[in-house]
């Protein structure tokens, strides 16, 4: 169970260069970029919740705050009732996160990559080995499990990173654009794996994407994010109804960019 409650975050950005003499005399005023203004999300167990939004909407920033990489300026983040800001270690132990950056160690084998994270999560060596075996089954990694990550294809790399994130069998799974760069077959097998995890194992899955089909195929609930704020939520059908559109893509455009259009 993951809750994001009205979180906000702004970053300091380099100020635009002043021209002429004033550039020398005056210190440029701090320039702030509001990456996330107001994002809320409720993801229940046994369900797949999609965070759908265009590029730059604030999805990755929100998920990074969920992972405790930095603190939100406002709002509250809870994982199974544990406050991420106050008890980051305890919260992280309950989450498996596949972030935006998911580099592997090229000189370690897939198995060693997975076991390393398992050990950091507190598993014994035997437990971690057993889990990597089970996950290679689930994610169809058997062929490459004992090869060094150096020469992995995009799909193999993604699956290994996913196995690494799931090694401690977390109750909550967070994925940031997991199908980026995957081919049709890899995408399909990933979808299948996510379905098994949610439906059969009762995990709470949150994943961000900007791809409509993925959301339609997978999500029990969708949160539409645009310009740093969550603007709509509901099942795919509910969102279509809300926007009064038959196609989900049209509904998304109406919900995400509707206000902008009206303003223009």
């Amino acid at each position, binding site marked *: 169970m993951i809750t994001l409650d009205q979180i906000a975050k702004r970053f300091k950005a380099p100020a635009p260069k002043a021209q002429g003499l004033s550039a020398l005399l005056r210190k440029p005023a701090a320039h702030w970029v509001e990456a996330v203004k107001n994002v809320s999300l409720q993801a229940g167990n046994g369900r797949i919740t999609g965070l759908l939004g265009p590029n730059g909407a604030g999805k990755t920033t929100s998920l990074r705050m969920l992972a405790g990489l*930095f603190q939100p300026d406002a709002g509250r983040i809870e994982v199974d009732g544990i406050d991420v800001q106050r008890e980051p270690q305890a919260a992280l132990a309950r989450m498996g996160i596949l972030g935006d*950056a*998911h580099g592997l*160690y090229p*000189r370690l084998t897939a198995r060693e990559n997975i076991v390393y994270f398992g050990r*950091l*999560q*507190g598993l014994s060596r035997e437990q971690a080995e057993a889990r990597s075996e089970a996950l290679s089954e689930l994610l169809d990694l058997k062929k490459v499990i004992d090869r060094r990550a150096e020469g992995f294809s995009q799909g193999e790399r993604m699956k290994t990173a996913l196995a690494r994130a799931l090694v401690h069998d977390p109750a909550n799974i967070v994925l940031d654009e997991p199908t980026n760069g995957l081919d049709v077959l890899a995408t399909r097998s990933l979808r299948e794996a996510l379905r098994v995890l949610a439906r059969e194992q009762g995990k709470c899955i949150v994943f961000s994407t900007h791809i409509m089909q993925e959301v339609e195929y997978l999500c029990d609930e969708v949160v539409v994010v645009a310009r740093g704020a969550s603007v709509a939520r509901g099942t795919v059908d509910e969102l279509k109804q809300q926007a009064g559109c038959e196609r989900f893509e049209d509904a998304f455009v109406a919900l995400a960019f509707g206000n902008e259009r009206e303003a223009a």
Partner: protein
Amino acid sequence: MSTPSLMNHVVIVFLKELVDALRDRRTLLRLAVPALLAGPLMLMLMSGLIAQFETRAEQREVLVQGMQHAPTLRNYFERQNYTVKEAPADYEVRLRDGKLADPVLLVPADFEDKLARAEGPELELVTDSANQRANVGAGPISRLVEGFGRERAGLHLMLRGISPELLKPVDLNERDLASPGARASRITVMIPMFVIMAVLYGCLTAALDSTSGERERGSLEPLLMNPAKPLGIVSGKWLAVALLGAGVAGLCSLSFMPAQLLLRSDALAAMFRFGWGEVASFALILLPLCAALGAVLMAVAIRTKTFKEAQASATLAMTLVGLAPMVSIMNPGGDAPWQLWIPGLGQNQLMLLVLKGEPITLLQWGPAVLTAAVLTSACLVYVARHMREAVSR
């Protein structure tokens, strides 16, 4: 499933980083080969130079132009067991090009006449101060000519019934206090610098790879999403970095042992002693340096955006520490207690003491260890604090 302790995390990260670094065979080889070769190569070059001086001293040759004008001088030279050789006609060019390794003595045509009339004939010793080998040979020749002058003066005085002792009212005896080791240290003063360089390069790759390299590969973000305290992760990484630096330093120190066998100069071989005791002392001196340098380089690298930028930033730290020994090379003997507190310079001074064969007291070793400990902990805390920032940059 229990959350492992800080110490557990340190060990897990350390082992992984070590395996990761050891599998990078190519980089390891590139670090180990120069470390192993630096000592032997340098000692060989130096011993070659010294052996050359020695054989030249044994040869006892003088290159002269116009010796036929000075039979008296030839007689004196030959009585001193010197062989007189005719200088080549193009001696000036050859001295300048460094092809001629001996200075040339010019005898004027009227030498013998002027000598007989006591008119003070003039000899000329031609050398080139940029030609090091010829320059070294100038000293013995000018002493030889002075000896000739003294003998003539003594004979003249004796003919007039005056004791030649009058020309030497004072006797001067030299007594050298330096032990053989200390004498050799004039030559071996460069060795610590090479060893410190080896430590620097040993730490550099691993330190950058485990910080900015990890960030660039995109594996730092997932690593931080484990329930591990940043200080635990950083300490594990640092241990691996320091161990690699220590390994390269150890190889470099060990390489001086077989290098001794290559010494071509017997005198140098007798003076330069490098045994297990010296290796152990070097290790004790260098361990704190490895620890501190590893931490400093990690701290420098964590603030940078790319591996390339990290390398550029690390150059500053590397230059400062690498050139610190120059302070003592430029100013030999001017040692001061404060030097022991400076990382790099302190280790240099201590290693010089070891090479001189002098014992090291705790009071001398302590400052270097203390600075290293303070520097290490400060840098590790700094890296732990900034790791999360590094990801979000």
